[in-house]
């Protein structure tokens, strides 16, 4: 019995009455039940989008894997007759790829962690009787409404050596100016800081809706027990935000892997400054600047694997909780 499906229509009931007949009726009714099954009836709705999406997503991934096994470079066409893992060996032993992987990892971890902590702090602060709460929330979320292409321009200006706001502040407090974009020691940090500026409003929104779903009496019960505010949050409230944290972290990590657009728009070239190259920029550069298609495809596969390491457990976790 399919649970609340669309199966209980009148013709099915008629069949049920008549199925004490011979093999023939059985076969007819079985055929009918297949043709009217929910699978078939739902087909017209999901199948067309599925084919379009599947062609571009899974067709693309498959083709990319295939290209990564060839030696395809330049402007000709690929030779699919001679497949090997040479490009993966080359990629994994390249110092550029290793440096880019390290940068990707640092970006992923620092960006995600700081966004979560800052977003939670902002949500806790705003989850109070605050004047102009709506307006403040709108301001905090405003950077999120802008695209990487746009925010990259603002931050390029913010980090400008002579006239950028950050350097003016640093100068004023006596630290002195820093070449944020020219200095490999600082450029990745500068990019991460800008991304945190853009995305902590997003985690705030996620946490805020999580906080608002926690019943008020839990605060009160804990407060009457004499627990301090910090303790109430640490022991009672934050553990309940686990699923909100997991979802937000996954979304942030995926954004971090996609930070290509930010880096490209900020510097306007395929080659970001030394110290800020990530796998995503390296891949695009190898493909569209140097036409090293199969090498780029191999790097893309590595990037895809990193993403799957994040998504796989997440989807499984969601499935276990029954929220798929």
């Amino acid at each position, binding site marked *: 019995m399919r649970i609340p499906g669309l199966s209980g229509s009148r013709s099915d009931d008629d069949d049920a009455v008549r199925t004490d007949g011979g093999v023939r009726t059985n076969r007819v009714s079985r055929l009918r039940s297949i043709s009217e099954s929910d699978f078939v009836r739902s087909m017209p709705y999901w199948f067309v989008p599925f084919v379009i999406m599947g062609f*571009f997503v899974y067709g693309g991934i498959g083709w990319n894997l295939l290209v990564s096994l060839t030696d395809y470079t330049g402007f000709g066409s690929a030779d699919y007759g001679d497949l090997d893992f040479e490009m993966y060996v080359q990629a994994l032993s390249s110092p550029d790829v290793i440096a880019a992987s390290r940068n990707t990892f640092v970006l992923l971890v620092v960006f995600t962690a700081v966004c979560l902590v800052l977003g939670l702090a902002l949500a806790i602060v705003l989850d109070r009787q605050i004047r102009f709460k709506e307006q403040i929330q709108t301001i905090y979320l*405003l950077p999120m409404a802008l695209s990487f292409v746009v925010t990259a321009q603002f931050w390029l200006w913010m980090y400008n050596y002579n006239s950028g706001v950050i350097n003016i502040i640093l100068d004023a407090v006596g630290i002195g100016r820093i070449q944020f974009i020219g200095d490999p020691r600082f450029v990745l940090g500068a990019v991460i800081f800008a991304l945190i500026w853009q995305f902590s409003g997003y985690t705030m929104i996620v946490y805020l809706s999580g906080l608002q779903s926690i019943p008020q009496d839990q605060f009160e019960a804990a407060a009457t027990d004499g627990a301090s505010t910090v303790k109430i949050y640490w022991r009672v409230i934050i553990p309940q935000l686990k699923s909100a944290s997991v979802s937000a972290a996954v979304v942030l990590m995926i954004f971090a892997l996609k930070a290509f657009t930010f880096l490209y728009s900020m510097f306007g070239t395929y080659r970001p400054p030394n110290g800020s190259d990530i796998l995503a920029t390296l891949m695009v550069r190898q493909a569209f600047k140097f036409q090293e298609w199969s090498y780029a495809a191999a790097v893309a596969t590595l990037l895809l694997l990193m993403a799957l390491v994040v998504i796989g457990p997440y989807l499984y976790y969601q499935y276990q909780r029954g929220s798929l």
Partner: protein
Amino acid sequence: MSRGTTDRTLFDRLPGFDLSRALLYLLILFFVAFFLVPLETGLMTAFKTTQGVTNTLPFFPPLGEAFTFQKWVDAFDMLGRGLVNSMVLTVPATLLCLLFGSTAAYGLTLINWRGQIFVLVLFLIGIFIPYQAVLVPLSRFWSMVPLEEWLSPLYVLSFVQPEHAQLVELIITDAAYGIPICTLLFRGYYLSLPGDLIEAAKLDGASVTSIYRRIVLPLSTPMIGVVFIYQFTQIWNEFLFTLTIVGSADSPAAPVTLILSGLGSSLSGVDFGMRMAGAFIAALPTLVIYVLFAEQFAEGLETGG
């Protein structure tokens, strides 16, 4: 609302926070500044002459001789073509996403069959994959499809050039990769629809199609708004596919994002006044949507990310 009224008394009773109300507002104010300074600086800079940009503090308003409107005019001259291209590509791509996302969500939610979780997971993975993983095939694929030839009858129109075939390629590409997230957004909403309404319709013998048209679609108007806003913003801002398919900012088909990333830069450096004005012009449609529909925007983010 009941929460709001208890909040204040509770807040006062919480130990250790009695004095801190002023501090709290100070903190809030600090972050208001933190989030606004880059935008405010950009806006002020956009109204300054090149002299003004170098001579005044970046976040100070443009006064006297430093003020000019010229940068906006220049930036608009450069971006005008891109704005048209972006609009031509974003609206149809968004509508395609809405159509396919909504039907896919319906087919995978309100009709029960066992395989749907598996199909759904395939959709979900499509949301999260880094697009680098399909970029090489994508560029190969579109170089193999002779779309430019197929559209050649259109070139009699004076404003259509062969390069504009790239816009059609972008529409299809953006729509295809937007389907998964739209499916997820619609599915979340459909799961929350009152089940008994649909049950009742089923008992009356309504077909799958008529339930969709008569019940689900009318009920999903608010969600259509949310998804439209979310997806419009996404596609308007899209960059990676645009770079791959259109490539050059000089192309007649270049959308606004592509032109912006090199705007006002020359050997002598970047004209920041013009760059900032350009950034605001490029962001304008999405900013208007954000200000008008902040609530729906936040809702789309909460579920979609």
